[in-house]
């Protein structure tokens, strides 16, 4: 089925998320929609899927104008979507999720689970998936959950299939497998829209590429285009894809983590007997697929986890057992992975956010009273130093773009005397300009002699920053390898295979 979008415009208040976007996808074609975070890709697809209503423009399938009142209409018209955040119900089984909204029933609305199971098995067999129809979604790895999403779409005979940032949660190997699935779907005549901001994937699988910037189509490109060409089209200027970084000059051991184990309240091990050391002036990247214990590892260091065994020593100071306040006072700087949730108070101003962890005394508090002059002076300096683009220091942080929010977090954390700096997913959701800035500051921090831990699920980022790489899988560190270890090896390690020679 041929899909055509004509002049789609979607506004949220004053913001125009999609500005007269045209797009055509032919059957048996993989059409890549390339653009930065916030360029309007997901909005466009939500319009296509009936989740948002477009202010202007029309959607055509096989040259017939469609009117979608909701996702149900889009689905019935043959549009399927594999969402970035899976639309699966964690406590339901695979079969229940696949049948939901499209249930086959016996008399009186009694569910016919056998038919649903058979459908799951039939589609699984077609693509060589190994999926138990009665497994609960929450017990499945994310890669398998994504396949359930694909089965769900195909069970409704989708002829146009949209993949919204599907590789964000996958290992490189799983990504390759997904590409194979896409090619197979293409061979069956499905029209595929593949939304991503990862250049490598685009060039590998795309038949055509449409680039979106700030809600507008800014051009089409051939899959043969170089990374640099695609990147400059996406960002609107020439960008450097590598981080300028001199070789590390590691000093003595600054952080020693020994036999660290973290469990959740019901005893599941989240971090499993992890030991490593980190030297001054060195960046250790913690790589791995999301949810393999990285978050809990950083939270354990920060004193945010409560069931911690083992020891974490920074410059001779034991951190296990300290409160987050005590950890901060020991000289640890922390950029949390979810800046809106854990890094900032959205309703506070830039200045207030800059002193969030300095409420205990001078220079910002005297006799229980805020020293607003001192704070204003400090905030003005930091806003200039970290290039935070805002009207002023009294702007509420919630109003800033992701990149500027992250700069506020960095400014706060890096303007203390640090003995250890931890940045978790420091560039998630940022635009390319901000990514460059954040990377530069991280390398500068390293060069000033601070040991740095960067947790990232993006292999490109890991490769750009790391002096050494620790790969985590199911709570364990599979191995610690040099910073220039090839991607495919890292990929295998992320899937749990131990590197025989390096681990020793």
């Amino acid at each position, binding site marked *: 089925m041929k899909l055509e979008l004509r002049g789609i415009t979607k506004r949220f208040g004053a913001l125009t998320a999609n500005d007269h976007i045209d797009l055509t996808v032919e059957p048996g074609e993989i059409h890549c929609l390339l653009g930065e975070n916030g360029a309007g890709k997901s909005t466009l697809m939500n319009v296509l899927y009936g*989740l948002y209503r477009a202010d202007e423009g029309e959607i055509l399938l096989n040259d017939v104008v469609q009117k979608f009142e909701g996702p*149900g209409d889009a689905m019935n018209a043959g549009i399927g979507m594999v969402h970035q955040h899976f639309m699966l*119900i*964690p406590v339901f089984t695979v079969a229940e999720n696949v049948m939901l909204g499209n249930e086959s029933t016996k008399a009186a*609305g009694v569910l016919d689970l056998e038919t649903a199971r058979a459908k799951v098995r039939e589609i699984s067999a077609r693509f060589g998936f190994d999926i138990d129809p009665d497994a609960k979604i929450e017990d499945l790895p994310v890669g398998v959950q994504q396949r359930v999403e694909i089965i*769900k779409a195909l069970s409704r005979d989708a002829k146009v299939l949209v993949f919204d940032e599907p590789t964000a949660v996958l290992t490189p190997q799983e990504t390759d497998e997904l590409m194979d699935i896409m090619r197979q779907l293409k061979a069956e005549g499905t029209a595929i829209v593949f939304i991503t901001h990862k250049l490598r994937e685009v060039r590998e699988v795309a038949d055509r590429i449409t680039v979106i910037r700030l809600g507008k189509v800014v051009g089409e490109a051939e899959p043969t285009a170089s990374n640099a060409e695609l990147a400059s089209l996406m960002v609107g200027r020439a960008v450097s894809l590598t981080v300028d970084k001199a070789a590390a000059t590691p000093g003595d051991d600054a952080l020693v983590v020994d036999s660290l184990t973290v469990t959740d*309240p019901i*005893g599941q091990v989240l971090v499993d007997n992890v030991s490593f050391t980190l030297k001054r002036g060195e960046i250790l990247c913690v790589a791995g697929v999301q949810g393999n214990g990285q978050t809990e590892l950083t939270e354990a260091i920060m004193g945010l986890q409560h069931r911690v065994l083992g020891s974490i020593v920074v410059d001779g100071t034991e951190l296990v057992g300290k409160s987050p306040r005590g950890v901060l006072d020991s000289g640890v700087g922390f950029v949390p992975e979810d800046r809106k949730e854990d890094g900032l108070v959205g309703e506070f101003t830039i200045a207030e956010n800059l002193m969030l962890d300095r409420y205990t005394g001078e220079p910002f508090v005297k006799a229980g009273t805020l020293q607003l002059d001192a704070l204003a002076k400090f905030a003005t300096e930091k806003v200039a130093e970290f290039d935070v683009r805002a009207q002023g220091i009294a702007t509420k942080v919630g109003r800033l773009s992701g990149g500027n929010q992250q700069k506020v977090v960095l400014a706060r954390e890096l303007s203390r005397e640090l003995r250890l700096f931890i940045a978790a997913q420091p560039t998630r959701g940022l635009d390319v300009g901000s990514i460059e800035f954040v990377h530069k500051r991280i390398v500068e921090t390293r060069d000033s002699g601070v040991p740095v831990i960067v947790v990232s699920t993006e292999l490109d980022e890991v490769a750009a920053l790391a002096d050494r790489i620790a790969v985590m899988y199911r709570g364990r560190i599979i191995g610690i390898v040099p910073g220039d270890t090839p991607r495919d090896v890292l990929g295998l390690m992320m899937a749990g295979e131990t590197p*025989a020679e390096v681990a020793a």
Partner: protein
Amino acid sequence: MIDVKTTPVPAGGSAPATIAVRSWKAPIGFSAFVVIAAVLFIGLGRDGVTNFRLSTNSDLIQLPEIPLPALATGIVATAAMATITVYAFLRAREAKKIPLWVTTLFAVIFLTAFLTWAAAGATLPMIGLLAGALTVSTPLIFGSLGGVISERVGVVNIAIEGQLLSGAFVAALVASITGNPFAGLAGAMLAGALVSTILASFSIKYFVDQIIVGVVLNVLVIGLTSFLFSTLMSGNSAAFNAPARFERIAIPLLSEIPILGPILFRQSIIVYLMYIAVVAVWFALFKTRWGLRLRAVGEHPTAADTVGIKVRATRFWNVLLAGAIVGGGGAFFSLAAVGSFQKEMTNGAGFIALAAVIFGRWDPIRATLAALLFGFATNLQSTLSIVGSPVPSEFMLMLPYIVTIFAVAGLVGYSRPPAATGKPYITS
């Protein structure tokens, strides 16, 4: 480039590792009860024999009374409970779970010893105690069924109390005017649904905090029914507050089964409707398309929306249905239990039903069992005060609420409510 060889993942590495968590909750709780048992049943032990009656006079098959000497029973039971407690400590030290049947056995032993002690020297009508418990539980069960449906679809229903009370009022009024208890029941369901309409409109359409709407509705219904009771009913109770009642109906054959028959099958129509409602709600919730969609909306509304389920409509109609079920339970008060409407006659039953929803982990069968437990505590209180018990009546009146607090606070453990319950579904 570095040459790195990898070894495959070791077999069996698929299950996530766990560290055993030692929970001392059960053994410590058991110990507390052993101490209570030792003090009450031995230290303050009473002489005399308690007779447990297992039949009523009208039964075809008469079972003999079981006599238990109070002090001896207390000593034996305390020893048995102490043994179980030691076993629980050993299990906990090995970080193993205490099986449910052990806890149940412990509870039954304690309860038997308590009854023997409290009723020493008298005869305890067990059938009356249990049948009464079932009767008292009936509105709680209707309330918790409505609560389960409402919360499963994503709307917290604090207004159960108000729905019960409005049901009780309208049932009395309609049944008085029409002279037909079934019309009263239908009116009660409508009244409950009406209260739900307000809850649903405010929380689903206007995103008002569901807890606040629920609390306000309770207060509103109390005020409204009290006002109408004093202005309308009390002046002319013959016309407006003398409803035709649901009488007890003994089901032939079934009602003659020893012990179970008199308890389960000599009840009023509303109780029989309750049996049907429990099974029907359970079946519908877990085996039908309606239930699958309802649960999906309560767990992950966005996911439900993306497969074409109308989230707000599903929520709205099911909250109404929940209100109708609760309202029907309210009719029990005025048409079966009392025979007329009284001011605030539900007396907190809606909140106990809410506790049963949580204690029952949002499952209709478990919630029913929880409601039965609470009902049993209530009826035990009234039975013992008739038989004459050494515990001051004020303490006995506290019993159902103490059981509720212990049940909800201590015994639920790790339970997970529907993920999206209480959260409005907002789209742009």
